């Protein structure tokens, strides 16, 4: 116990106590790294400035859900700006930003400041460290992904005339929300952590994650939309679109989505000759309008991959990421 103001020269004289208490071993180590990682992802235990990006991104991501919940209350659930199945597609950019800004926090500092030497000289394996960090990131992304859905569900319940009926109606959706949120979290966590671990410096890691998550998506999207028949494979080069595909597939099984039209496959219709009769011209116009109205709304709709392709691509991303991470951390010399 602290003594009164120690005299100069006698400052070390407190006596050493051996520790005979409990030791939690590797499990304790993983838990400590997991909890610390989770806290730092939300800026807890850091200065005020570290809390701004995560809170701002979560707030922006939640705004559509808040609007939807309010609308549900006003219209008794008869009007929807956004639905559970489309939520990830709409907020995917914010997810990308969250990964880009927060993931490097988890691993770049440990490498750059060489704290890894202090971790790895303790009773844990290098893979324990990687698992604890991935676990923290998956948990954070899962929480961020679930929050808007919870708000929307609560909005639905409060708006409904019979809360229990509303709960019953939403029951089949809930496991799908959980499954989609979890799949997307694991996918994006692995990809962004792998990038952050390879690139040592934090700002560069942020830029690289942004590039891979968002810019790749932005480049790929118009290409796939313009020629889905030839270029749809490009969609798999963007982890965010793979995530959207998986999420769409998970929700599509309950037919939340209207069936997607495939008219883009039809051959282009030549404009009728100017001397054609009015019925032919009207039919041509009608068909053009129908095609325009039912055009694919997103690259995922345009590509029309079966769900298994997205799931396969997701598993591929996760396995490659895990492999690269394992190699990377085996190689780090501490």
């Amino acid at each position, binding site marked *: 116990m602290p003594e009164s103001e120690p005299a100069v020269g006698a400052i070390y004289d407190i006596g050493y106590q051996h520790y005979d208490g*409990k030791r939690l071993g590797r499990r304790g180590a993983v838990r400590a790294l997991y909890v610390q990682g989770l806290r730092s992802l939300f800026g807890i235990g850091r200065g005020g400035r570290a809390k701004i990006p995560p809170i701002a991104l979560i707030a922006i991501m939640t705004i559509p859900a808040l609007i939807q919940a309010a609308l549900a209350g006003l219209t008794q659930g008869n009007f929807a700006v956004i639905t559970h199945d489309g939520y990830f597609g709409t907020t995917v950019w914010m997810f990308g930003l969250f990964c880009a800004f927060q993931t490097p926090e988890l691993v770049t500092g440990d490498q750059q400041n060489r704290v890894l030497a202090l971790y790895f000289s303790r009773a844990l394996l290098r893979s324990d460290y990687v698992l604890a960090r991935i676990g923290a990131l998956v948990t954070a992304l899962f929480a961020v992904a679930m929050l808007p859905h919870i708000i929307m569900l609560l909005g639905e319940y409060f708006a409904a005339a019979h809360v229990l009926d509303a709960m019953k109606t939403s029951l089949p959706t809930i496991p799908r929300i959980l499954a989609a949120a979890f799949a997307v979290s694991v996918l994006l966590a692995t990809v962004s952590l792998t990038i952050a671990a390879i690139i040592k410096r934090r700002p560069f890691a942020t830029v690289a994650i942004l590039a891979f998550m968002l810019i790749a998506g932005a480049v790929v999207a118009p290409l796939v939309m313009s020629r889905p028949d030839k270029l749809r494979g490009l969609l798999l080069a963007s982890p965010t679109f793979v995530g959207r595909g998986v999420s769409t597939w998970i929700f599509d099984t309950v037919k939340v989505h209207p069936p997607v039209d495939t008219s883009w496959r039809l051959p282009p219709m030549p404009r009728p000759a100017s001397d054609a009769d009015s019925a032919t011209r009207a039919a041509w116009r009608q068909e053009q309008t129908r095609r325009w109205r039912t055009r694919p709304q997103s690259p995922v709709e345009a590509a029309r991959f079966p769900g298994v392709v997205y799931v396969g691509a997701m598993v591929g991303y996760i396995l490659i990421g895990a492999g690269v991470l394992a190699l990377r951390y085996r190689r780090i010399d*501490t």
Partner: protein
Amino acid sequence: MPLLSTTDLTKRYPGGVTALDGLTLELEPGIIGLVGSNGAGKSTFLKIMLGLLAPTSGALTVLDIDATKHGPELRQYLGYIPEFDCLPPDQSATDLVTHLARVSGLPATAARERAAEMLRHVGLYDERYRLIGGYSTGMKQRVKLAQALVHDPKLLLLDEPTNGLDPAGRNDMLELIRRTGHEFGISVIVASHLLSEIEQVCTYLVAIDGGKLLRAASLESFTRETEVLVVEVIGDGAAYLQRLVAAGLPARAGAGGSILIHLGDHPPYDVVRDVAAEMGVGLMRVARRRDRLEDLFDVTEADIARGQHAGV
């Protein structure tokens, strides 16, 4: 139970660098100095002891645990200070040491208590709530020592713990090492290229060079080995040296016409005086002097050549 024992321990890095070359050694608990020049293989040896680096061949047990097979189990009982700066600047010493105590497997409450205790033990008081980024090198070294002790290890591995410290900081650090070894009953292995520093705290010395064991012996025998008598004479120094060698003394020529006589078990004073009287040369100076580390290696290499090196 020996603290550590190695058999024919060899580490070759890809690319052909041999960091350790057939090291066979057995150490008893205590404060052990691991001396060698830069690149002698000290850091590599420490990393293999921690189970962080796999040896190319050979065996190593530390605290009766096979370091190559049971790394995590062994590391519960080890504390380690790397030679480089390894502290995050954006955390306070309290937060960091508490966190590292938990990574060592201590429950939350115990981690907080031990962290506070260890930081006090190394001499950090109010400063420990400040961010490490603002610490001096000496304070950082203390934090590194605190984190290495926080889980109450049985063996402490220190890699160049006095690097970058001013003389006062160096003395504080050495005193902390001495106390850790003598009063807390924790064995310490200190790697350093400065023999003059670690000989102040060590009870046993291991000298390696180029990955090979030069010598492992208690500090006293090292001291005996490395002490020389410097003799300067007026008169025919070369003839005098020849006579001394003929009389069976381990004498050699030193710098500036001086004569260096290795001080072994048999003090050469009588012979030095008698031969000088016989030849009529004047003794200008007769003084005991400690060899520098480089000289130590000369002596021990000569020993090896004569097949006398202590294989312990």
